[in-house]
């Protein structure tokens, strides 16, 4: 797996959603990702204020 979220760290702030260029993310009770849309660009990882997302670029 190359996109991992630590839901214990996540603050449900939606920062990752706001920077995702492909609308792959959505914030409900947790952040959910549409794998088909995600380009593994890593921008969500960079923006996250609390280091909850880790993207290992392919």
């Amino acid at each position: 797996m190359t996109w991992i979220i630590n839901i214990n760290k996540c603050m449900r702030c939606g920062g990752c959603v706001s920077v995702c260029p492909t609308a792959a993310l959505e914030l409900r009770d947790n952040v959910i990702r549409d794998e088909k849309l995600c380009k593994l660009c890593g921008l969500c990882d960079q923006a996250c204020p609390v280091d909850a997302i880790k993207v290992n670029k392919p």
Partner: protein
Amino acid sequence: MIDAVIVGAGPAGTCCAKKLAEAGFSVKVYEKRAEIGAPKRCGEGLSEASQNFVGKIPERCIAQRMKGARLYAPNGRYLDAILTEGGFILERKVFDKWLAEEAIKAGASVQANTFVSGLLKDSKGYYTGVKGEFMGNEFEEKARVVICATGAESPIRTQVLGVYSKVNLVDSCIQYEMTNVDMVPDMIHIYLSNILAPRGYVWVFPKGEHRANVGLGIVPQEKKPGAYMEEFFKEHPEISKGSIIEVNAGCVPVGGLVKDMVTNGFVLCGEAANHVNPIHGGGIKEAVISGQMAADVIGECLKKNDVSKTALSKYNDDWWELRGNHLKRVEKLRETLEKLSDQDLNDLVDALKPEDIIEFARGAKLSILAKVLMRKPRLVGIAMHLL
């Protein structure tokens, strides 16, 4: 079929709803959070002058009144800028609910805990309503126009108009609401430093004698805001001795104003269109204004029974004329300030007079600012850039 459905009950959504309802249109607002306004994602600062748009704010929404701002240079020296009109630190949880109540009083309907999962679209390519979920039940709501007031955190703006926030144009923020901290309570405290908060700043917004929102925003990077906050705490025992009673995070757009905010049957407003002041990251006032401006144009369009992109684009024109061009200049100023070293910031705080700061934060009278900068040899380059 109702006239307008609004996604998101933040200030943009509820202020838009209120105006539409006052003009006699049927409006529903859906908010995914279980409680409107909570958790807050905000330092809660608002200028008193914002009441010109939002109306008189009831006392119960106000945690603390401000008479000005204390601006700290990296070397610790500070400057007090006293505003002719002051400001407030709000209780957003109360304020956002008040705005919702105002919309409801005007005739709108607002429903919390309701997630909008998708949009309805007709064969001509017009958006015609939303799909939603309330208490586990799915439903559809048809409307003549859909307003996206979701803040920056929704994929809807990206799906419909391709709008998202460029990562280098957001400030990645952490904020602790703290008690038992010591500071002058009737001033907001802003700490400028490239070491403590690259591109952004540290803020202490008092909410009473010993309570404050202590926050920090930075350009997104590997080192996270929490790590920077630890360093600020080391230098500020008067703050770090306090207890953390709430933690908030968020990314606030500080640029990337959207040129085209409409399409057939669809309008973006508030932070969803990155309507935020690019210098201080304040978005409440801009959300209120853009929600109201959108409502004015949508109302005209509904009356003429024409919600085409062409008809709705009057909102683009109006917003850019009243707010966009100004905020664009503020963004330019932020780009200039970003280039300042800590030594430049020290010189700047020394060179500025309190009156200058106020103009400065508004992004007004840049030539005056440039003249001030000219007084310090190190800052001449930056002054030239402004002129």
